[in-house]
Each structure stands twice: as C-alpha cells, then as structure tokens.
C-alpha cells in the first residue's frame, strides 16, 4: 500500500519541513502520495507535484481549511486512510497538533518524532529529551507518524510531474474557530530551515542585548535562537526556543552564546554539524558538545566576532 504525506504550508508555499517528510516517506515505500489542505493553495499543490518521487497530489481547497484546524482536517485524512499503510506529517506544531487526532480516530498508536526508518514497521525515535534512542516496532495495521525533519534531507523539488487530483469537501466540524494569529515578521531564515543559527542564553542578561546577536546574524544570514532560560527570563518570545520543549534544529553551524547547556537545550541542537560555544564558565556543559569553544566575556567576544566577520567578507 502507498504512503500518504500531509503537507505543511502557508497556502502560498510549501514549508521545508514537508520536503524532509517526503524523504522519510520514500524510505518506507516507493509509492508516495501527498495531500494539501488549505485555501487558494493550488500553488502549493503544484510545488509538491514537482517533488521527486511523489505519485499523486490531492488538493482540498476551501476556506474551512485555511487555518489548518485539526478538527476539520482529521476527518478528511481518516476517510482517505483505508488506501494507505502509513500517514506521515512533519513533527512541527502543525503535525503535532493534527496527527494524534487522526490516530485516535483510526484507533491506532502514533509514532512521534521518528529519526530513522528501519523497515516499514520499525523506527527509531528520541525519548527523555534525546538522552536515549528508542527502537520500536508498531503492531498496528496502519502507522501514523510524525517526522523529526532534521534527520532527513529535503527531497528534490525540480524533477517530479505528479497528477493533481481535486477533492471536493467542505465540512466544518464547528468545534474550533480561528480568531487571530500574531506571526513574527522577520527577514531572517526560520530556525528549523537555517544553515547557521546563533542562540543566546541567560548569559545575555537582557532582551536588549540580543542586538549583539542580531548584528552577527545579519552578517552570517543566520537565524536567532534562545535557550529556555532566556525565554523564561522574558528576553525573547517562546518561538525562539531551541530544545526539547522548543524546536529541534540541526544547522551546519550552531553558535551558543551565554548558554550553559542544560540537557533540555542540548536535546534540541546536538545534531548540528559544527557547534561553537561562547561562555565565561569553562566548566559549562555546553563545552562537552562544542567542536570549538571560547571561554570569556561574551560582551567582549561578540563585538570582536562581528569585526572579524567583516574582515573575511571583504
């Protein structure tokens, strides 16, 4: 049987997380379908139809699905489920919100956050904030899965030519209504898609001091992250948070500034390719995962770093 991927998007563009999820789906079975639910989202369906390895794309285009209300999306996926052995979505707040609802309606378990596909019923996922890896086997006939996107490369987006099929549905469950959203407007890359991330912790001392990180982020085209301690202290909003309780990232370069390296933070960034730590405490646990560390005062080091970056750019 085929595998179905629930696509995350903003009605205009597919989110990168979906491309990693398609790769995970292809490791389960050669036959992969995708479904796009939204409003005026035909461009997203076009983008998905060009992804390598996608056989068919379903599109459900109606105002009811614009804001991805779980109570409205779940019944449609459940109706399609009989044709699929596995249904996958990224383990983002989008996937985490909807997929368990689908699993319960199908009376099957969900497998959260898979890091690898061993075979069609066996997967590896992190537990205890990534301090242990669990290899598990699902005995359910149908597998509902969320995918830890940093563990899978993005599928190629320029070589497919899948059929797009419209599904005519508009059933409002009438349970939840969208009221408003406040999305952070930023020209910087999204945390989970960034090639370089610079993150600040409690050592930044205030939200204002994050300016120092912004200056460097601008020069490196980096995203800005934070530890839970910095979020709890009110320096930056929660969606900056990298860690077990925030976002899991794996950029090519992760620069941790004034972050001690609590277990819960390490769980969110330890798979980064190169990790740099800047901290005044030489015994800080962050140095145990860092490829390069500098012990010292971040308020002296950051301006210097900014200057040195100008030199290599020129």
């Amino acid at each position, binding site marked *: 049987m085929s595998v179905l991927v629930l696509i995350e998007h903003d009605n205009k563009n597919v989110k990168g997380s979906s491309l990693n999820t398609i790769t995970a789906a292809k490791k389960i079975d050669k036959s992969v379908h995708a479904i796009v639910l939204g409003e005026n989202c035909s461009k997203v369906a076009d983008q998905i139809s060009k992804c390598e390895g996608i056989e068919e794309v379903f599109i459900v285009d109606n105002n009811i699905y614009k804001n991805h209300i779980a109570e409205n999306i779940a019944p449609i996926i459940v109706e399609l489920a009989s044709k699929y052995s596995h249904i996958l979505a990224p383990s983002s707040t989008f996937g985490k919100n909807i997929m*368990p609802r689908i699993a319960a309606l199908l009376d099957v378990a*969900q497998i959260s956050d898979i890091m690898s596909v061993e075979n069609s019923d066996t997967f590896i996922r992190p537990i205890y904030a990534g301090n242990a890896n669990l290899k598990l086997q699902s005995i359910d006939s149908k597998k509902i899965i969320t995918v830890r996107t940093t563990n899978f490369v993005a599928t190629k987006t320029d070589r497919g030519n899948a059929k797009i099929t419209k599904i005519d549905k508009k059933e409002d469950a009438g349970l939840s209504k969208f009221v408003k959203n406040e999305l952070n407007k930023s020209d910087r890359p999204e945390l989970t898609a960034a090639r370089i991330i610079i993150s600040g912790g409690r050592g930044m001392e205030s939200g204002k001091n994050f300016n120092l990180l912004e200056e460097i982020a601008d020069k490196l085209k980096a995203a800005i992250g934070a530890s839970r301690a910095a979020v709890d202290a009110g320096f930056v909003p929660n969606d900056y948070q990298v860690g*077990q309780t925030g976002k899991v990232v794996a950029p090519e370069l992760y620069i941790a500034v004034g972050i001690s390296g609590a277990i819960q933070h390490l769980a969110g960034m330890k798979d980064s390719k190169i990790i740099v730590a800047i901290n005044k405490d030489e015994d800080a646990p962050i140095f145990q995962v860092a490829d390069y*560390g500098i012990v010292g005062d971040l308020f002296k080091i950051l301006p210097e770093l900014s200057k040195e970056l100008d030199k290599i750019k020129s």
Partner: protein
Amino acid sequence: MIMKILVPVKRVVDFNVKIKVKSDNSGVDLENTKMSMNPFDEIAVEEAVKLKEKKICDEIIAISIGSAKSEETLRTALAIGADKGILIETEEEVQPLEVAKILKEIIKKNNPDLVLMGKQAIDDDSNQTGQMLAALLGWPQGTFASKLEINGKKINVTREIDGGLETLGMELPAIVTTDLRLNEPRYASLPNIMKAKQKPIEKITPGDLNIEIKQRLKTLKVTEPPKKETGIKVDSVQELISKLHEKEKVI
C-alpha cells in the same frame, strides 16, 4: 458558569536528572531516581487553581495513571490546590491511546467542563494524549496553550505555534494542553501539603473501566545516543574565525 476541571498528572523522572540507559538496552534505569510531577502537568494544575481562585471553577479533580507511587504525584496536585484525586492503578506501561481511553471513561463518569493537561510528558516525549482524548470525545482541542480567556461557555486559547502565536475560539467542554509560558507554577506551602493528606483519593484499575492495556508500540532496544568527539578550546576570536572559515568552510 462555574466549571469543573479535570487535570491528568503523570509521575516522571525529575527534569534535572540525567538518565541512564540500562546495560541490557531494555529501557531506562529508573531505580533510585528522583521522580516528580511532569512539569507541563504542574502548569496545568496551576492554571486550574488560578481559575478556581477567580471563582470560574469550583472543583478540580486530579487523575493519575500508573503504579501505587503515583499517589505521591496526586498528593502534590492536591497540595497545589486540587480538591480530589483519582488513581488508576496499574504496573503496566500505558501508552497514549490507552491513556486517552481511560480518561474518556473517567470523563463520562465525572462530566468535567474542561480538561487541562500537559502538552507532553518529559519521559516518552510523545505529545499525543490531549489530542487523542479530544478526538475520542469529539471535543475541540486547544493545544500548546500560552493563554486562556474564558467567558461563560466560550474559551479563547492562544497557542504557541512555529513562527508565533495563534488564537482559536471554542466552546466548552474542551481539551486544553499547556505550554511553558501559560504560567509559573507555585510551590505548595507546608500547611497545604498537610491538608492535602486529608483530601480524598479514589483508587480504581483499568479493568474496572473495562479497558485492556496493550502496548501497540513494542520496545525493541533503548540505546544511548552516539557521543560526539570532544572539541577544542580556542584562545581568540581570530583563531575561531579561521577554523570556521578555512578548515570547516561553514562561514
């Protein structure tokens, strides 16, 4: 409208503890490990107690599923301000779908208007139970909540989503799962800890609810994540930049 609130609480390894994988790779070694209430559940209890203080709620029922020791976790909830506890006693591992099925039965018997629960437990990190429970009941779900506004039977839930915040409006009864910034849980005072010892805890088993516990996800092997090679300390920013630029070629 005065509400009744149900708050599920889970006994998990304390969030400060560094866990150890058993040498036979069958699981995580929890012998002699400090256990606490799951931090997200503490936030849920705190929110319920706040609603009670605002007289929006008049009864808070805490429920826990697990071994006899989960009674300690219920006592903690009672000390923070829950009124009574229900312990579903079992020695078996209960996975999210079965937890949701047990909670559904308890909800049918107790008719709460709102279920406030942690978005995930910090042991299995599943982040499923609230959404599954909402599905089984056909109720609305407000997941990853950072703010609640209650007006009669209407409730607005502000959710922490990737990229910012989203507010959904729904009607009670509903399921709300808590995120970190919803509140800061209080410490239980000594008099309240003493008082909690007198509060009632009802004990039942999954069998009493005609629910059969089965593990749909079989543990094959638990391993420690691969260790990273130890890195190096550099003495200057210049040295760092040259390593990143010339050796690693990441900038």
